[in-house]
């Protein structure tokens, strides 16, 4: 039996997390000499998904909501012995819905490949990154939803056989509209995030934060107090009850590092903290720290990074 993997797209383009999902499915499938079935609504040649490990690619008109897609994947799962879904905002609704429909055991917030396949054991984040749980899933129809960007995977090519199918999608939920900021790096998917807090003193000072983000190709974010007082939109608030991120690089400017903030960012691979207060708790969670005034350090850092980019 095969591993079924959901390939999410946005406006007809594969999401980056989808390639990770296919590579994850390939790694898992290979442990038991299985194949990978990738399910996508994108009509594109097989090459790209095959490059990440898709053996069969089912192109199908997928619904626009988690419940709608869950019903379709349930039908396709008859051909599979396990399912992989990236933990994107859609995936985080889809995986549990599908688990309820298929009675499949589910691991979300997964941060490892299977440690063993019989029984199936995995590691997942718990207690707001203060704990790691090893979980065991029943073998009926295990579903793994992993944290994007948490597992480095080397792609292994698959066979890439294409097929189209039609399965109708049903959901009582009607989508009235979707709005996605264009031209900006989406925060949950960003590889680098530049985040600032009350140390910036006012919303008019965010120009240099955006400049720093621009140089790094990073998304901008902010602390909770900053979104609560309306300096920045709520959609930029990272931390517990805001958006949780785990980029390769997280730069915190003028954020003291309250535990609620750390809960949403501490899974980031490299953390840089700039703060005037050498006692700021965030330094304890950081890899690199600079004690200094943001208004002096950030422009210098922008210049140094520009010089580095120009030289490399």
């Amino acid at each position, binding site marked *: 039996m095969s591993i079924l993997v959901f390939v999410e797209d946005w406006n007809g383009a594969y999401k980056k997390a989808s390639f990770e999902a296919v590579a994850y499915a390939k790694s898992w499938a290979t442990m038991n000499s299985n194949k990978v079935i990738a399910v996508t609504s994108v009509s594109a040649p097989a090459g790209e998904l095959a490059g990440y490990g898709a053996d069969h690619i089912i192109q199908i008109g997928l619904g626009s909501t*988690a*419940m709608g897609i*869950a019903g379709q994947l349930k039908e396709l799962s008859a051909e599979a012995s396990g399912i992989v879904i990236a933990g*994107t*905002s859609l995936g*985080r609704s889809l995986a*549990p*819905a*599908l688990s*309820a429909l298929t*009675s499949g055991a*589910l691991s979300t*917030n997964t941060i490892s490949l299977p440690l063993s396949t019989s029984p199936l*054991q995995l590691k997942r*984040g*718990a*207690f*707001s*990154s203060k*704990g*790691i*749980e*090893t*979980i*065991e*899933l029943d073998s009926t129809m295990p579903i793994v939803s992993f944290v994007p960007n948490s597992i480095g995977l080397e792609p292994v090519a698959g066979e890439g056989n294409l097929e189209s199918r039609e399965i109708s999608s049903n*959901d009582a*939920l*009607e989508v*009235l509209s*979707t*709005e*996605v*900021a264009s031209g900006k790096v989406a925060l949950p*998917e960003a590889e680098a995030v530049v985040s600032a807090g009350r140390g910036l003193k006012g919303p008019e000072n965010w120009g240099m934060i955006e400049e720093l983000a621009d140089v*790094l190709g990073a998304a901008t974010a902010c602390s*909770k107090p900053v979104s609560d007082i309306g300096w920045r939109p*709520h*959609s930029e608030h990272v931390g*517990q*009850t805001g*958006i949780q991120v785990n980029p*390769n*690089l997280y730069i915190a400017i003028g954020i003291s590092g309250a*535990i609620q903030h750390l809960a949403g960012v501490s899974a980031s691979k*490299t953390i*840089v*903290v700039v703060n005037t207060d050498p006692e700021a708790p965030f*330094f304890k969670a950081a*890899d*690199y*720290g*600079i*004690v200094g*005034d943001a208004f*002096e350090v950030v422009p*210098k*850092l922008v210049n*140094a*990074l520009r010089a580095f980019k120009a030289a490399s």
Partner: protein
Amino acid sequence: MNILVCISHVPDTTAKINFTADGTALDPAGVQFVINPYDEFGLTKALHIKEAQGGTITVINVGPATTEPTLRKALAIGADKAVRIDAIPMDAITVAKELKNHISANSYDLIICGQESIDYNGQQVPAMLAALLEQPFANACVGLSLDNGTATATSEIDGGHATYKASLPMVIGGKKGLVEEKDLRIPNMRGIMSARTKPLEVAPATEGEGPTKPVSFEKPAGKAAVKMVDAENVDELVRLLHEEAKAI
């Protein structure tokens, strides 16, 4: 309007997390338990709805008797009655099935959960519950308005927002934005006094073991000590980020 608010009983955000000596469970010693922060937004939203259009708010938890103080606190904040399903669930699907059984035997117009609980961080129960009930579902919900049996819900999606419409009953996975943090209700003395006499029903569990089980828990590897870089020498930071961290 009959509203059910699902309440998780979780370690306080600032709690130090330790596991039992054999590593198979959370060690509750010294841990303060609270209403899951995501659920607080749902509870206050339910109070706003009740105040605007009348109704009854029931809070529910699937857990052992130790979760009752958390349910009492929800009653003190303003819920009308509480239900505890007496179980020690080991996974989300078991919780979702217990909730489904309760909901099927009663009748609710709106079911509000927090999008996730801050203990096991699964983000599983709300979507599972909606799928089991075959009801519409809006996750990461940051805005909800009700008009004559129709709900308009705004949800965070990657990089933006989506707005949905559905007929009630429906299930919400809520978070900050459902109400503003400054509007969150906290118990006052009158609420605490009246909570003592509000009904808290204990119902027996109906489900058996689920398909997943925790094997062990560990703490993440400690981070190496922070490397401080002089504020006058940001080139050194750039070098470290490139050569050592390989982050740029």
